[in-house]
């Protein structure tokens, strides 16, 4: 157990360096990217005096090393500076977008896992039969279809032509939906920066329980989430299907399976209890790592569906050369990636303790 703790501590320390690296790289990029943010805040017809005012109000002329040191200092205190474009604090804006992005990433993962593992298993156990060929074709298409194209096609087909789903936006979120039933008690926020980070005891039943509101909001939420989740999850589904199939094939051909079959275990037990379980170890790792990728990689999907998450925020920020906002988004995305990685490592270490050595 002690070694597991040490393992976790080491991974966390490494993760902190990764986040620091992200910040440093962003500052380096800032140095080599042409164009002053002033040109994106003010139109061409703004006078030099106006440009001066804009630059001064944002500290744009401070030397970069000073901006860097200030930024790291702010970051250690949980601050992320102020947006160049709107001069509002970055941290609350970025955190406000986090639920939308997490919802999308988790939903895409759920879609992917729910589809891909059965597909992979069927395809491995009925190798070369029709389901296997269909699954192989599907995963080939899934891996090679670009996200933005798929998203636009799904919208045109299911939202514009057949009007089954809305085209875009996110009128309600998961938290608002659940808020019809559960609310956070008045004595403090649910999440804080001090330990314990999450106060689940502050979650109480809503005083007037709004079950119909919950259902209505829930339907809206799912309807808006469905197409983006499918779009984002398709590549992922294809990837896991392939992984499950090849893992399953490998396991089914190995010695212990032959032994199990030889001793007369029922085939279902052999496949799902023994072979599938061992197949899932690498699958879980990849699912976890992909979840991290999805948090950062949803940019295109979010743009196509006007999904108000970190992706749309970072695109707007880049369009405006709003460096503090870009940094804030990347720090959160990077941290998310690192946290997911550590969690996956920890899980993997529990499943296979050999890796801790």
């Amino acid at each position, binding site marked *: 157990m002690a070694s597991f703790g040490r393992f976790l501590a080491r991974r966390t320390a490494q993760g902190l360096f990764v986040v620091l690296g992200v910040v440093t790289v962003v500052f380096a990029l800032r140095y080599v*990217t*042409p*164009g*002053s943010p002033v*040109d*994106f*805040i*003010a*139109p*061409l*017809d*703004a*006078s*030099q*005096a*106006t*440009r001066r*005012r*804009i630059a*001064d*109000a944002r500290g744009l002329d401070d030397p970069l090393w000073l901006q860097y040191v200030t930024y790291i200092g702010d970051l250690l205190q949980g601050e992320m500076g102020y*947006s160049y*474009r*709107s*001069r*509002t*604090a970055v941290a609350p*804006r970025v955190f*406000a*977008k986090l639920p939308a992005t997490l919802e999308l990433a988790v939903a895409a993962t759920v879609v992917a896992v729910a589809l891909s593992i059965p597909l992979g298993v069927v395809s491995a156990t009925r190798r070369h039969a029709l389901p296997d060929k269909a699954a192989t074709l599907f995963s080939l298409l899934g891996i090679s279809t670009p996200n933005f194209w798929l998203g*636009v096609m799904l*919208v*045109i087909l299911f*939202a*514009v032509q057949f*009007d089954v789903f*809305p*085209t*875009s*936006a*996110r009128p309600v979120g998961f938290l608002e939906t659940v808020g019809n039933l559960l609310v956070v008690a008045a004595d403090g926020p649910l999440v804080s920066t001090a330990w314990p980070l999450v106060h689940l005891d502050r979650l109480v039943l809503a005083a007037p329980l709004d079950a119909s509101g919950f259902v209505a909001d829930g339907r809206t939420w799912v309807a808006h989430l469905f197409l983006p989740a499918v779009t984002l999850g398709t590549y992922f589904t294809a990837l896991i299907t392939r992984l499950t199939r090849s893992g399953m094939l490998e396991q089914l051909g190995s010695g212990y399976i032959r032994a199990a079959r030889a001793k007369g275990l029922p085939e279902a037990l052999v496949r799902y209890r023994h072979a599938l379980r061992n197949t899932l170890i690498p699958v879980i790792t990849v699912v976890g790592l992909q979840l991290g990728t999805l948090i950062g990689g949803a940019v295109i999907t979010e*743009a*196509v*569906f*006007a999904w*108000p998450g970190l992706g*749309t*925020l970072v*695109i*707007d920020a880049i*369009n405006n*050369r709003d460096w503090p906002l870009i940094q804030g988004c990347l720090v959160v995305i990077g941290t998310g990636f690192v946290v997911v990685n550590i969690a996956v490592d920890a899980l993997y270490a529990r499943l296979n303790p050999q890796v801790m050595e």
Partner: protein
Amino acid sequence: MRPEIERRRFLELAGATTGVAALAGCTDDDDGGDTPTATDGEDGTPTEETATPSDPETREGYLKRANAVLHAEAPWIYLNRQYSVYGKSTDVEWDARRDETIDGYAIEPTGDRLSVTITQSEMDSGLDPHDHRETPTDNIVRQAYEGLLGRDREGKVVEQLATGFERVEDGRVRFELRSDVTFHNGDPFTAADAGFSVNRIVQSDVGGLESPQVDQLAGVTGATPADDGGAVIVESDGINPVVFSLFATYCDVVNKSWIEDNDAAYINSHMNGTGPFALETYEQDVKVVFERHDDYYRDPAPAEQLTIQAADESSTRVNQLQSGETDIIVNVPPQSVGEIQNSDDAEISAVPSTRVLYNAMIYNAEPFDSVEFRQAMNYAIDLPGIIETVLSEFGDPTGQPTLEGFTGYNADVDPYPHEPETAETLVEESGYAGASITLHTPNGRYLKDFEIAQAVVDEVDSLSNVDAEVKQRDFGKLAGELLDGDLETGPDWYLIGWGNATFDASQTILPLLTTDGALTSYSSERVDELMDQAQSTGGSN
């Protein structure tokens, strides 16, 4: 033979008279639907006067002459006036405005629905009406805030919070104010509020803010309530002939005590104006919801609720419109126009905007220091063809820096015709035959900017005696080179767009085409002189 004659005509005209209409009489393919024709009424009788005419007395006369000179001296390759192209649901009645803003008050929902949704490309940068310089934010704050003056759909000056305006003396104007107006929080609107709003923009120590809008009210030094309380006096240094034009476009009026009592974070997330809509909910980066202000001093707005949201991708906006999730979308790209026109539930609303696209040619750099060469560049391009193929007709050809409908627009000046032979002859005469030139252009900053630049370069390159190529540039870098005040550091030939929401020629010519202009590429004594005369003559707004 023909080019010879035309050149001689040109040299006459370069001495600055009006009519050059006869030179460009062959651009008759101007069929963009409700496109207003530039020369309606006054067409067909170009003034043939030469030499020095008697000085025109009016400011507008000087501006018109400056435009005629600038046509003849050709400091730019004149390109297209951009259109604002919106998509609109058939569930609402609304017509696009020329000044790129969307006036929620003018949107009428039909049927029994009373809420209206607008999807633009980007959300606001905070709700303080004096702390931004961009259209997406303007579109949002101007539903709740109003100015002393405003503009109608065509750009004409109309009264808003002022009931009258007059020039008391040079540098001093007086706005009579409405007495029946309340802010959304219930406070009555007073002359003190009007004066404070002006001062908050032009004076850096008023209102807790150094407003980036200071040069939108250029020349204005401050405002004070009149003694009787029913008016505000605005002071300028100098004559400030465009002061009413500036106030019709800029300067939103805020509530003095509300601004003074609240901090920047609050002012940026709440609204307290006098306009037809009051803020209901503000979700930063996501959407703004307004409700109708029922105590509005005019008739209440037709729509009860107004939502403004954003989608960065144009295809997303088009899809939202087609599936009925929004009522008005901005910036429909040419390739989506047909799709919307063919749909039963949506249509296109397009209007010439206040933005012009042009290719500047630095006046003292070879080969652009030759007027013949610059004219040749204008003759070389098929502007109507570019507008047809690249912009699907959503653009008007221009032949002078000032747009039709603006104060100072010269209706006798037509765009250059497409005459490659004339162009080749002029290049020979310029002495720069064999020149090799490079057009610097941003990509994606303006509608189809790179495609237009490519078309221009192809046509110039197809001249037998000029080689041209196009170079894509990062907009920020290009803007930096152009704005540093040194012509030497920037490119000699570049594509850029210029928006002028004041509907006055001076706000284009002064910064871009006079010797001291902030973004100038040109210097000509004749133009400088005419602009000096125009700006020292009061009278027109």
